[in-house]
């Protein structure tokens, strides 16, 4: 199997003595949509920083499409597109200038750069804003601008560090569709996010990093299989006085029209539906109580992804 990214024993200790990464072995196959998750301060951005040469690793090896960054960093960097967590463009420049200049930094001639700038700004809904000052754009537009900038040289590996942070749900969903399409066209994507729902929706493989160590590196399916219990919340059509016999082991009545049911991995929803029907209980809607991935995440790192170290 060919890997878009492979790190071996990657470690980083900052000048102030903080160890951000400890012997991280990461392997992201070509074409993958990979989620790199972890609480704040876990080391995700340090991994991305090392790849983008903004952080100098202390030890270990990093290969991008087989190119060792210690041997030929410029070539390795030419494969990468990086969307950082913080806005890092010149707010006085226009989206057109920002994206076109970025193409220039990758050696793309001006005519091609302009054509691609138009292509990606249009795809991300920013072409109309191409001559506005970047600092005047909304938060969502700024995020999309950074994605357009990262894509303009058509990288083989796109790294997105919290790309939908602070973006409203509608734009987030449209960005998901866009990223899926980019991935389908062959671009490997590594995504860090606090929205575990986002990772679950988009990613095939997942790594969880905590205190600088990779504590999980597996496929999303395999990880979710490890979930032993899921809790569903049912909205009932009619108020319920007591929980019927047969359901009382797994269900709790939150209020007269809201029922919570715990379902083990080996159990089937059909059996519960049958019991509900037999007792004349009609269900209007049903939802997961918590994101499935979130439960696993908490079990691995001990707290929610939004809580820092």
């Amino acid at each position, binding site marked *: 199997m060919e890997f878009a990214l492979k790190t071996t024993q990657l470690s980083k200790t*900052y*000048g102030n003595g903080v160890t951000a990464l400890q012997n991280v072995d990461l392997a992201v196959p070509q074409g993958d949509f990979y989620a790199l998750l972890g609480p704040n301060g876990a080391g995700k951005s340090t991994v991305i*920083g090392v790849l*983008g*040469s*903004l*952080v*100098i690793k202390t030890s270990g090896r990093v290969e991008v499409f087989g190119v060792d960054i210690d041997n030929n*960093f*410029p*070539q390795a*960097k*030419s494969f*990468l597109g*990086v969307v*950082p967590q*913080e*806005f*890092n*463009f*010149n*707010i006085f420049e226009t989206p057109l*200038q*920002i994206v076109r*200049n*970025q193409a*220039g*930094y*990758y*050696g*793309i*001639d*001006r005519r091609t750069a302009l054509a691609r700038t138009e292509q990606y700004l249009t795809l991300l809904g920013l072409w109309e804003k191409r001559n506005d000052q970047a600092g005047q754009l909304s938060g969502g537009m700024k995020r999309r601008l950074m994605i357009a*900038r990262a894509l303009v040289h058509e990288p083989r590996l796109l790294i997105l560090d919290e790309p939908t942070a602070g973006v409203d749900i509608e734009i987030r969903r449209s960005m998901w569709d866009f990223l899926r399409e980019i991935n389908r066209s062959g671009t490997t994507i590594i995504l860090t996010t606090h929205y575990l729902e986002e990772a679950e929706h988009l990613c095939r493989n997942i790594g969880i990093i905590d205190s600088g160590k990779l504590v999980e590196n597996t496929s999303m399916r395999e990880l979710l299989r490890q979930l032993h219990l899921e809790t569903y919340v049912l909205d009932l059509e009619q108020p319920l006085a007591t929980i019927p016999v047969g359901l009382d082991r797994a269900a709790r009545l939150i209020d007269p029209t809201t029922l919570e049911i715990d379902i083990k991995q080996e159990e089937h929803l059909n059996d519960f539906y049958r019991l509900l029907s037999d007792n004349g209980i009609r269900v209007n809607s049903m939802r997961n109580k918590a994101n499935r991935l979130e439960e696993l995440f908490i079990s691995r790192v001990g707290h929610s992804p939004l809580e820092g170290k």
Partner: protein
Amino acid sequence: MTPREQWIAYATIVIKEITRFMRIWQQTLVPPAISTLLYFVIFGSLIGKRIGQMDGFDYMDFLVPGLILMAVINASYQNVVGSFFGAKWGKSLEELLVSPTPNSIILLAYVTGGVARGLLVGLIVTGISLLFTDLNVFSIGILISVAVLTAILFALGGFINAIFAKTFDDVSMVPTFVLLPLTYLGGVFYSIHLLGDFWQQLSKANPILYMVNAFRYGFLGISDVSLSVSFAMIGFFIVCFFALSLYLLTHSKRLRA
């Protein structure tokens, strides 16, 4: 990157730099024109008439080369320190650092931007000086080469300052406390022959003295110091500053954690 790709990256940064200082011309081109105009009026016309001659030339003629070079020095320095530190502070420098553009190309491009602004300001100041005196050119080759080399040197100086600077105060510190005194004491307004032996010798430790005198030689054919020493001095500092800039760009913790 292939040489062509490197050229494109270089041209992109240079165009961006020139576009930047042209966009804010009120801040980059007008102030040196106004301050030099005041120098010409006050030191040249008003006080200069009372001074008479300096090294056999009208004081105004003596003054012009130094003021032009002072403007070149300030503009090339300010351009790079302002632009590079601004990019570092605003984090837009990251977009350049994550790209495959070699550090040497980044450095050369920023220096070119500084030289472009330095020379443009030099031309503007030269134009203003024509309102006050007729300029004689003794050697156009020396004139251009000293102007370009000095602009390169101070653009590199601005680059080093920008890497070390943590705040905007750090950016203005060097021009105020180093550049300005060295320029004023570098023979812009007087010939060092007016000084006593000790002060003459001390003045010769000031590298700007060599640049100002070499530039003045291009106009008037006179210099307080040897021309070859001047060129050697400028060349030496350029090599040192270039090597230091490149090293810092690659290894400095101020740019990469």
